[in-house]
């Protein structure tokens, strides 16, 4: 009986291992083997969110997964009468409504590429086209079923990263516009405050580019009172929206560059413990705690 159970357990473990290995073999992969991330999804670009990962890279750009090319724009296309901030770009339908967009690569004729591409197929070459300052390319994920931009970090393999995000500064802005730095000012008047956080993440190396965090929350006396998720952005009734506690206009969240506005909190009289928790996609967390007296 015990031998039979052991045999069954080994079989189950073996099957699970096979499934994992097979999944790894066919899993989504990064679009470039080399290069560094310049800006990532959600980064505050002078008051506007970045909706893509931009890479500084050389060489080939590969399809992250198999799919069908549904749109190609080459900067030399005479049919296009509008400028192209995406530069030369290509959209590939991956299935289930997910569209990957490779952009700002080298402008060249793509007619030799098949309409159906396999994972890892060479799509283009790193270049300098559209809104970019450095040779490389940009990568965007779009969900056409939910009509929203998706953070590529949510489906791309997680890179090795043991460094938690950094919080440079936190500001509380009162309804009268007065700003308070809780790091130096421990006594605040009672009232409603906007929480502004200047935070960034890096990929391991202390000298690496500053990137957007994945999630940042504000806890007041242990209760989550404000939060900002860098998972999706969507256009709704003419506004670009991002998730805080609810869908909020990105213009509000990003207006106070380089800060991100997490939301508004009500500080009542008494002792307050304000905690800012910044997380990256690798689940590294950074906590910053402020103790204040509210009068």
């Amino acid at each position, binding site marked *: 009986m015990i031998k039979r159970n052991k045999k069954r357990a080994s079989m189950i473990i073996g099957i699970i291992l096979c499934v994992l290995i097979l999944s790894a073999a066919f899993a989504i992969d990064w679009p470039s083997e080399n290069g560094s991330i310049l800006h990532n999804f959600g980064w505050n670009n002078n008051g506007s969110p*970045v909706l893509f990962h931009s890479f500084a890279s050389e060489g080939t750009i590969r399809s992250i997964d198999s799919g069908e*090319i549904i749109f*190609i724009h080459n900067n030399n296309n005479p049919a296009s009468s509008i400028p192209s901030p995406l530069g030369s770009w290509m*959209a590939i339908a991956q299935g289930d409504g997910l569209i990957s967009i490779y952009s700002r690569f080298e402008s060249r004729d793509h007619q030799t590429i098949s309409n159906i591409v396999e994972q890892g197929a060479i799509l283009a070459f790193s270049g300098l086209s559209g809104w970019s300052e450095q040779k490389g390319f940009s990568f965007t994920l779009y969900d*056409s079923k939910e*009509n929203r931009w998706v953070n590529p970090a949510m489906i791309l393999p997680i890179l090795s990263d043991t460094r938690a995000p950094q919080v440079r500064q936190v500001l509380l802005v009162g309804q009268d516009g007065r700003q308070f730095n809780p790091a130096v000012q421990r006594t605040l008047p009672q009232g409603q405050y906007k929480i502004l956080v200047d935070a960034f993440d890096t990929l391991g190396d202390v000298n690496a580019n500053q990137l957007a965090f994945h999630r940042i929350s504000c806890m007041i006396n242990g209760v989550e009172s404000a939060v900002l998720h860098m998972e999706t952005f969507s*256009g709704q009734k003419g506004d670009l929206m991002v998730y805080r506690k609810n869908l909020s206009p990105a213009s509000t969240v990003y207006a106070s560059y380089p800060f991100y506005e997490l939301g508004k909190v009500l500080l009542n009289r008494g002792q307050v413990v304000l905690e800012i928790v910044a997380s990256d996609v690798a689940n590294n967390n950074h906590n910053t705690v402020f103790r204040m007296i509210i009068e």
Partner: protein
Amino acid sequence: MAKRKKKFWIPIIIVVFVFYIFFAAQPVGLETVLKSQWITPIEYDVSAESEDVSEPLMPFLLNGKFGYIDVSGNLSFNKNREGYVSFSDSRWAEYQGAPSQIEIKSPLNENLFTVRNPNGYPFFLDGKNFILAQNQNAISKFNDAGNVLWTYYFDAPVTCINVNADLVMAGLLNGTIVLLNDNGNEIFSFEVLGSRVAVIYACKISNDGTKLAVISGLDKQRFLLFEQHGESYRVIYHEYIGDGYRRSVMLSFIDNDKRAAFEREGGIGIYDIQSRQSTMIPLEGNVYAMDSKGIDDMFFVITSLPPQEKKLVGIRYPGMITCEAPFKSESIYLNRNDSSLIIGGGDTLISFVLKKR
């Protein structure tokens, strides 16, 4: 008896002959010919004095050169293109990849105003100024002082835009068209289904704003025409036009909004809005340029066959090819101004006037 039968036929033949000559004959129609008007080389930079040119001035972009030329062939200016260029009949701008500001200039090369922190690229349509955001998900309208008047964020990346009759139309990667009024408010949107893949590849607004034309989808690609119906628009015609191109496609309202012309697999389609007849004109090669006016009963197209073969094709409505002129050039330019046709190839712009004889 046989002789009588023969005599009977002869008068009938004479009557028919006389009738045909005097009553059934039609006069030979006038044919349209292209008469060369002027030739202007653009090999060298030009910075002309303003009194040498007269309005209207037409922008051209050819072989790495950019500038404005008037209907007499005088250049307002001609320079090397050094970056991205956006232009219209009344203004232009040249900029690099990620500019912190963009200078807007007149066709006489005078500074008009500056747009600071554009966060996108400008385009000028219908006499107005717009910016397409760097994420290619939003359009902003700005005034002649460079101040943003409004911004509209779409729910998908933008694949095509047209502005006409105080309306702004965007086609999106998710197969939706969105129509905004001059204040940036959405007045109409439509998800174009009916194809296996839903993407908008071209969109156009008629000059009077009462009609919208769209090329959408893959497998099969469709041409759709919408007509204004109260506060909204409804589809009045659609046609499947082949498996489809996976790129921006040429589309125009021509002949004073009486027809729509569009690029389709194997040639050009021309749809007559009044008669609701669609004609497919087979053409060799890809359509490289299309006459955006198509007036005076003639419509011109330039096709391209690699490596550098180009062909000017003149089409008389509803769809008869009346002239074909092959030439060699890597890049080309085509513009129509009333009865003049301006064609550019290599380092030369040539104007033809259309005459009937």
